[in-house]
């Protein structure tokens, strides 16, 4: 029989560090997440600093130099049919895409999270909110956007509202499912026996524990909204010219595609990079927030 060292019955699990610390550490150890984060950082900085980075005003026309090839001196990414600098327009377009993305995520969070919490917590509200969510899911989103555009005359805010509304039902479902799950946990039961009220339980126990699911859902909505903005602007329902938007640039470029494809290539690549960044980062975040994965 082998002899072994004295084993205390109750060994504390090695101190893993704080929850947040663990999440950050896991994120930093995920190469794909780092790539996504770096991508996002670059594009966000480019968008925020557009007024300083852009060599020209995005609407400044140069009639003498239309359809310049990329790499032309003075026009790094070339010019479009009106001789506008593609680089400057792409920078400002990325900025607009971000604005729409952030605004629509905000709208989905501000409306979807409370509705999800309430409908998950109170059964009588559930039927009502669920029907509402069903309706929003079934209602053709494009018609909503078109209708809003007709009333408000289009624009960035209009696109953000339409995309935000379109993403409210999924946010409601995610938060509702989390609330239903958390409502039955022992720690919420324990809070009940301490005579904690509904608002305390929702605010201090359920919401903080649902936060990671909400954040993950936000990282799903964000690229969808960026793509959605491009679609709406492409159809003439989003941001209105002459304001630069990646979708409008694509729509314009389609008309002279056979002369030069470049003005269509760059905005597409920028959209792809933004979405790729969010998708990679969102995946990494979800893995990091999931206590089941990794160390």
């Amino acid at each position, binding site marked *: 029989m082998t002899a072994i060292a004295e084993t205390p019955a109750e060994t504390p699990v090695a101190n893993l560090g704080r929850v947040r610390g663990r999440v950050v550490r896991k994120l930093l150890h995920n190469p794909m997440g780092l790539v996504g984060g770096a991508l996002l950082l670059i594009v966000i900085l480019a968008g925020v600093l557009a007024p300083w980075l852009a060599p020209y005003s995005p609407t400044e026309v140069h009639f003498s130099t239309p359809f310049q090839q990329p790499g032309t001196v003075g026009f790094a990414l070339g010019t479009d049919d009106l001789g506008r600098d593609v680089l400057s327009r792409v920078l400002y377009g990325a900025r607009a895409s971000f604005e729409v993305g952030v605004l629509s995520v905000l709208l989905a969070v501000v409306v979807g999270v409370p509705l999800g919490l309430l409908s998950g917590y109170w059964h009588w509200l559930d039927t009502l909110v669920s029907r509402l969510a069903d*309706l929003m*899911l079934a209602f*053709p989103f494009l018609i909503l956007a078109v209708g809003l555009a*007709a*009333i408000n005359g289009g624009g960035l805010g209009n696109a953000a509202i339409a995309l935000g509304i379109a993403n409210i039902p999924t946010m409601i479902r995610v938060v509702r499912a989390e609330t239903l799950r958390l409502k039955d946990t022992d720690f919420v039961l324990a809070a009940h026996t301490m005579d904690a009220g509904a608002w305390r339980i929702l605010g201090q126990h359920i919401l903080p524990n649902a936060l990671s699911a909400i954040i993950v859902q936000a990282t799903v909505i964000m690229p969808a909204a960026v793509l959605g903005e491009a679609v709406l602007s492409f159809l003439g329902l989003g941001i209105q010219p002459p304001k630069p938007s990646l979708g409008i640039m694509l729509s314009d470029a389609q008309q002279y595609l056979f002369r030069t494809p470049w003005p269509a290539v760059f905005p*597409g690549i920028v959209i792809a990079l933004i979405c790729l960044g969010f998708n990679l980062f969102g995946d990494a975040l979800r893995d990091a927030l999931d206590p089941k994965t990794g160390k």
Partner: protein
Amino acid sequence: MLRYLFHRLWQSAVTLVLASIVVFVGVRALPGDPALAMAGENADPATIKAIRAQLGLDQSLPVQYLRFAGHALTGDFGKSTATGMPVNQMIGATLPVTIQLALYAMAIAVLAGMTAGVVAAVFRGRWPEWAANGFSLLALSVPTFWVGILAILYLSVQLGWFPASGYVALSENPLRWMYYLTLPALILGISHAAVIQRQTRASMVGTLTADFVRTARAKGLGSGAVILRYGLRNSLIVVTTVIGLQLGGLIAGGVVTERIFSLPGMGKLTLDSVFTRDYPVIQAVVLVVTAAYIVINLLIDLLYTAIDPRIRVSGRAQ
């Protein structure tokens, strides 16, 4: 079962009525007057008034709604204020194109997505997973209409493999139909394939690490049987849900694809009707699309009972 079916039908009816009210009130909130649009800029007030009366626009909103709903129940959506054609005909002419495109795209998406998802789950941590995951990440991030534009430029115009636009009815010539619809369906299906790939992979990975899969291996079953009979069979449940949620998006996403490839589907009708304040057409389009979405999801829920034996009357997994 019957109880459950009635319950679901009742829910669907409520959603549909709500949708009709929303769109009915919504279109009337739109700026612009269809009577004015019909009569022209220089029409005298009497003519406009006559047209308004003829369209029933002089009545109160609830009365207008009830009249509209009553007609809609009998399948009559009135006449387009823009073209004067019966709305039924306009929808009837364009809906099949949109549905064919959506189904074709979905077939491509399911086939490609599930294959790539299974490959990624089975070859975990090896190059096929990286390839499949990379493909779907890219497909999710790239605007599909942009891919469509570039595809027309290179595949259609330069290489001449596909037509850049046009449509032939399926009943007329199935081969030509396929020739015209394949590229649009492919473009429309890519991003949906990506979503299905991700869901299939996640669900398969979860299933393949489940206890009952270990038990299956402990019986001496080979990996092929485990993957197909255990992994895929259980993952089908999740994937079916995703497909249901996607079909709604496919119909909406079709609008852009139809526009790029100039297909005579409902997308163009939708856009035109809103721009011309064509109330009857807008209402009909919304109701048709909403109804399609509801019916598809109802079918999917019924399909569950076939796929997942745990779901019975209540319609919920235990």
